């Protein structure tokens, strides 16, 4: 295998992880969307490189779908949502950011530990990056938990999807085409529904703060 390709894949994987950390530490919604688009672009580049290295043509198609959905369409939709709802203000986190970074590091170590023995068994050129993919998933998961506003939660959800796609690429050269198309469709429909929801929540509560959504509890 071309050593350059291996280096490139590792570079992109490192970028993915870096961006996941950047998203955790970012307070501004607009920058968060940019970071998300950037992460999508990294994923596209990585998928394309793996596709090139292994001459698996369906990976190009998968990269194309990701490009259209996660780099162009969804960030554009999110831009429109935050413009219409004018939510540019800083995002409050439930835990302060340095603590979150520390927890994030622990999560990364945990992910690497789980993934290390399994990555050995993979036949993919990108097998070393499975740990990073799992770390990205966990980091986005943490972001969803710790953010109290609707838009960052949605971005966390989408970036988790990015991590999963990355895992699929690094473990197995992507899923079969039908499955990938189905997942893309689900993500698209999901984001549309969430967008509609944000308007409705806004109408009901005059704010997008999820803390309003705590009425339904066990008493």
């Amino acid at each position, binding site marked *: 295998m071309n050593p350059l390709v291996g280096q490139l894949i590792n570079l992109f994987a490192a970028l993915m992880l870096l961006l996941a950390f950047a998203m955790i530490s970012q307070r501004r919604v607009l920058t968060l969307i940019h970071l998300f688009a950037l992460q999508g672009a990294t994923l596209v580049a990585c998928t394309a490189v793996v596709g090139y290295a292994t001459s698996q043509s369906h990976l190009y198609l998968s990269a194309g779908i990701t490009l259209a959905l996660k780099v162009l369409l969804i960030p554009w939709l999110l831009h429109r949502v935050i413009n219409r709802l004018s939510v540019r203000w800083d995002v409050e986190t439930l835990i302060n950011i340095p603590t979150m970074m520390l927890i994030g590091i622990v999560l990364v170590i945990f992910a690497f530990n789980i993934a290390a023995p*399994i990555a050995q068994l993979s036949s993919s050129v990108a097998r070393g990056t499975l740990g990073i993919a799992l770390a990205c998933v966990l980091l986005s998961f943490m972001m969803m938990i710790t953010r109290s506003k609707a838009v960052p*939660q949605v971005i966390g959800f989408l970036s988790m999807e990015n991590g999963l796609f990355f895992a699929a690429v690094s473990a197995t050269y992507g899923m079969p085409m*039908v499955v990938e198309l189905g*997942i893309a*469709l*689900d993500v698209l429909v999901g984001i549309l529904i969430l967008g509609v*929801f944000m308007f409705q929540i806004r109408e*009901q509560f005059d704010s997008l703060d999820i803390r309003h959504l705590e009425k*339904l509890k066990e008493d």
Partner: protein
Amino acid sequence: MLLALLGHRGFARDLNVAFSLATFIGACGLTLRVVSEGPLFAWQREFFIDPLNVFLVALTAFVALTTAIFSRPYMRVEEERGKMTPRRLRLYHAMYQLFSFTMLLALTTNNIGILWVAMEAATLTTVLLVSVYRTAASLEAAWKYFILCGVGIAQALFGTVLLYMAAEKVVGAEGGALLWTHLEAVKGQLDPQIITLAFAFLFVGYGTKIGLVPLHNWLPDAHAEGPTPVSAVLSGLLLNVALYAVLRCKVLTDGALQAPLAGQLMMGFGLLSVVTGAFFLSRQRDVKRMFAYSSIEHMGLSTFAFGMGGPVATFAGLLHMTVHSLTKSAIFFTVGHAAQKAGTQVMDEIRGLVRVNPTIGWGLMLGSLAILGMPPFGVFASEFLILTTAMKQEPWATPILLLALGVAFAAIFSRVQPMVFGETTAKRLPHPPALLPVFTHLALVLMLGIFIPPYLADWYRAAAQLIAGH
């Protein structure tokens, strides 16, 4: 099936029933063929029907049909009260059909990836169904449901990726490495290390949708705030299909590991769900929330049964899935009408059902007795089987199960009794409620309790054999 989009006038609800009826007839036809000819495949083996899923396909189509019948008068009342506008009704009917379609897709597909896609699509449609009233509470419930199940189902996707990774090495990327039948054939050669991790992720993912305990928070909210027909299909169908997904994965895991890891996980979480569900029951004031917790309890019981493994326990688990979904949807039908009549879901304000609408009152009483596992009904038979097997195989779990069932009995019975008897001033509903589905379901449950027809028993046995692998 998707053409329900067109109608938003009076005929839409009839159309809804008609579509569901067509689906049910189709499912019956399919069932007969499978029973006589064995497993079927279609479309390059992407879809398949075997004894395990055919029984769920028939059940799903049947409950979808009866719920459609029930929702006709229910939605008419909601419309007159201004809770449903024509636009919302259109959305409701379209999503209802789409939901049953995704359920059937999830059941019949042979591809584990498509199974995931269908489960996610089912989540999306039910999110819209739950939020259809657009009240603050229903939006909150739907948001919570979406985020929690979205996260859960993402874990399942990661599990699916890992499973594919393990399979690819054995089957090869071209040979349909996600097709369940292919995986089943080579399950002994799958790498145990990867499969362990994959099952953990898949179990957490689909377990969220079953409503197993640490991840059950969405379930009572979604049941209580959505329209009642939606609660009925959520409890009756969605939970079953999620459990079905876990079962499919369990078969593979057991084959790959040669160790009862999957079963132990399922037993542990199942037991936790039974206990937690039972203890939360007594603290509820909203009638739909209470029965939602009862669903958690019963799904936990089924999961526990499947976790024990072995032909008898699996048989009991399947039977329990069937009777639970029939009984629970019947209960939600009566509860829906009762809540409409009282204008509230708070149990303290629903009184004297027998006096005003005796059929609703008796329906609720019988349904509750059935779900509590009183002898003549089918739930008794399945719970009895589960308990006796537990005594033999896992004696430590028996007292816990008995305690939980006792607590559940006390909680539900003490709540339902004043609701059914007791004094009231409420008036009758403007439209005659559709109680045919309620009594059909209860009659079926009764029949399953007294006597299981031999062909049905064979069918269960075949499915149990498939899961337990004996």
